C-alpha cells in the first residue's frame, strides 16, 4: 500500500508536467486546429536554454528562468509566422507532417549545439533532500516541480477565463469567422496561442530538467502528451490537465507492476496502450466535443 501511494505521488508530479505540456498542446489545437508534433521539442529547447543560461553563462536562476520564457515566446511567434501560417487551410496530412519536420529540425539543432550527453543544472537549484510526508518519502525537487507546474496551470486557467486576450482566444476557438467579424485579430490570436504553447512547454522542460538532468529524451514528453489530450478530449484544456495527471499516475503504476511480466520498459508504452483503448471506446475523450456530421 505504501509503495502504491508512493507511485501515485511521484506519478502525480510527472503528471503535472504532462498536464502543463498537454495544456499548451490543447491550446494550440483548440485555437488553430493544428496538431503539434513539435510540442516535445519545445520542452527540449526550453530545458536546454535554461540550462545553458544558468550553468554555462552563470546567470542567476530567476533571470535565466525569465529569459527562457522570453525566448520560448519569441520562438513560438517566429515559428508560427514562418512555418505554420502558410499551412492554414492545407490538408491534415501536410499540417501533421510540417510539425513533424519542425520537430526534426529543432531536435537536430539541439544535438548540434549541445551534444547528446546528459546535462545537469549545477549548482542544483532545488535540493534533492527527501521529506517524509506520512508514509511517503518525497524529495524536495519533486514538490517544487509540482508547485510550479500548478502555479502555471492556475495562472493560465485564470488568463483564459478572465482576461480580454483569453476571452478573445476562446472566441476564436469557437468560431473564427464570427470572432473576426467582432474585431478580433485571428492572426494575433494564433501567434499568442503558439507562444503560450511554447512557453508552458519550456517551463515544463526546465522543471523536469531539474529532476533528472537534461538530454535528448526530454522530447518524449511531446509524445506522452497524445494519450493525455486524447483522454481529456483534444479540444478541452481542462481535459488536457486532468488527462496529463491521469497518464502520469497510470504510467507509473503500470510500469512498476507489469515490468515483471513483460520484461521492462512498460512505462514507455503504457500510455499508448491506454490511448488505443480510449480511441476504441470513447474517441472524443472525457470532455471533448463530439463531432456530428450531417450530409
Amino acid at each position, binding site marked *: 500500500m505504501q509503495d502504491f501511494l508512493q507511485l501515485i505521488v511521484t506519478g502525480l508530479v510527472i503528471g503535472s508536467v504532462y498536464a502543463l505540456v498537454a495544456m499548451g498542446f490543447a491550446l494550440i489545437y483548440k485555437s488553430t486546429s493544428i496538431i503539434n508534433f513539435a510540442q516535445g521539442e519545445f520542452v527540449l529547447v526550453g530545458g536546454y536554454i535554461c540550462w545553458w543560461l544558468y550553468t554555462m553563462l552563470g546567470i542567476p536562476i530567476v533571470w535565466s528562468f525569465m529569459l527562457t520564457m522570453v525566448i520560448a515566446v519569441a520562438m513560438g511567434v517566429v515559428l508560427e509566422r514562418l512555418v505554420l501560417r502558410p499551412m492554414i487551410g492545407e490538408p491534415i496530412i501536410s499540417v501533421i507532417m*510540417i510539425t513533424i519536420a519542425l520537430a526534426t529540425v529543432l531536435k537536430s539543432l539541439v544535438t548540434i549545439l549541445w551534444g547528446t550527453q546528459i546535462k545537469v543544472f549545477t549548482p542544483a537549484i532545488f535540493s534533492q533532500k527527501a521529506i517524509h510526508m506520512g508514509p511517503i518519502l518525497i524529495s524536495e525537487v519533486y514538490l517544487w516541480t509540482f508547485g510550479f507546474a500548478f502555479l502555471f496551470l492556475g495562472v493560465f486557467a485564470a488568463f483564459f477565463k478572465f482576461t480580454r486576450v483569453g476571452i478573445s482566444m476562446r472566441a476564436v476557438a469557437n468560431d473564427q469567422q464570427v470572432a473576426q467579424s467582432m474585431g478580433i485579430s485571428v492572426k494575433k490570436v494564433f501567434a499568442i496561442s503558439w507562444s503560450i504553447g511554447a512557453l508552458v512547454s519550456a517551463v515544463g522542460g526546465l522543471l523536469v530538467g531539474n529532476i533528472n538532468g537534461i538530454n535528448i529524451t526530454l522530447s518524449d514528453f511531446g509524445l506522452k502528451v497524445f494519450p493525455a489530450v486524447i483522454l481529456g478530449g483534444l479540444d478541452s484544456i481542462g481535459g488536457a490537465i486532468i488527462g496529463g495527471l491521469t497518464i502520469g499516475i497510470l504510467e507509473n503504476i503500470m510500469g512498476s507492476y507489469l515490468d515483471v511480466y513483460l520484461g521492462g520498459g512498460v512505462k514507455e508504452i503504457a500510455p499508448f496502450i491506454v490511448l*488505443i483503448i480510449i480511441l476504441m471506446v470513447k474517441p472524443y475523450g472525457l470532455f471533448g466535443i463530439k463531432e456530428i456530421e450531417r450530409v
Partner: protein
Amino acid sequence: MPCGLFFETYQKDESIFPTLWLRVWMIALGIGLLVFPFVAQPISDWMGMNTLNMVNLIFIYIVGAHGLNLLTGYTGQISLGHGAFMGVGAYTAGILANMGWPFWLALPMAGFMSAAVGMIFGIPSLRLRGLYLAIATLAAQFILDYAMRNWSSLTGGSSGLLVPSASIGDFTFDSDFKFYFLALAIAILATLYLKNITRTRTGRAFVAVRDRYLSAEVIGVNLFKYRIMSFGISSFMVGISGGLWAYYITIISDEHFTMWLSVQYLAMIIVGGLGSVLGSIYGVVFMVALPELLRLPAEALTNVYPDIFVIFSSLREMVFGVIVIIFLIFEPDGLAARWHTVRAYWKLWPFSY
C-alpha cells in the same frame, strides 16, 4: 497537327502509356535499368559510393512507398505506423527463413502478416479520421516497436536476427549485383499494380473515400470495407518491402523500424507527390539519394572543420526536416506535380494556348 493530346477512341484514352514518346521513353528506361548493374562499378568508383547498393535500397523502399501512397495519397488515411509494419514484414520473413521456409513462400507470408497487423490497427479508421487516426497509428508504431525490442525469444531483441540470403532453387541472391534483378522485378510489379489498381472499381472507390467519404457512402461505397482493404493492401506492400529488406541486409534489428522510418516514408510520398504513382518513385529516389549526396560535401569540409562527422547525422536530419518544410510550403503537391508543370510548359512551347 493537333495542338494537344486528343484521344479519338476510348481504348486510346484508357491505355497506360498513351503516347508514342512515352512508350519510347519507357522502353529506354527499361533498357537502362537492365544495363545499369553491368556499368554500376565504374559509376560507383567515379562517385565514390556504392551506387548498386543505393539503387537496391531505392527499389525496396519504392515497394513500401507505393503501399503508403495507396493508403495516404489515394484513400486519404494517414498512417504513422508504416515503419513498424515494415518491421513486422521483415521479422516475419526472417523468422520463417530461419525455420527453413523457401524465399518464394516466406516473402508473401511477410506481406500477409503485415497486412493482418495493419488491418487490426486499421479498424479504428472506421470511427476515426484524420488527426485521430494519425494518433492511433502512432500508438501502433510504439507498441509494435516495443514488441520487436522486448519479445526477444522471437525477434532476437537488440542483438538482432540473422537471415540467410534469398534463394530460388539453387540460385542465391547473395550479392548486390544478383539482388538488383530481384528487387527490380518486385519494384516493377508493385508499380504496375499500383498504376492499375487506381484504374479499377476498387481504386476509384478509394479515391471517393478520400475526397468526400459521406457522398461515397451515399452512392454505395462501403466505407468500412474499403478503408480496411486499403490498410490491408498498403501494409501488404510495406511488409513485402520489409521482407525484401531483411533478405537484402541479412541482419534485422529493431533499431531500423522506429518512428523515424515511418516519418521518412511519409516524407518520401509528400516530397514525391501524394496520390501519384510517379510521385512515390521520385520521392524515394530523392530521399535515399539525398543523405548519400550530402556525404560528399561533408567529406570535403573535413579539412576545414574536422568535427563535421560527429554532427553529420544530426545535420542530415536537419536538412531532411528543412526540405520537408520547404516542400510543404512551396510545392505541397510534390516533385511529380512540379515535373508535370515543367513538361506541360515545354510540350506546346512556344504556342501554349
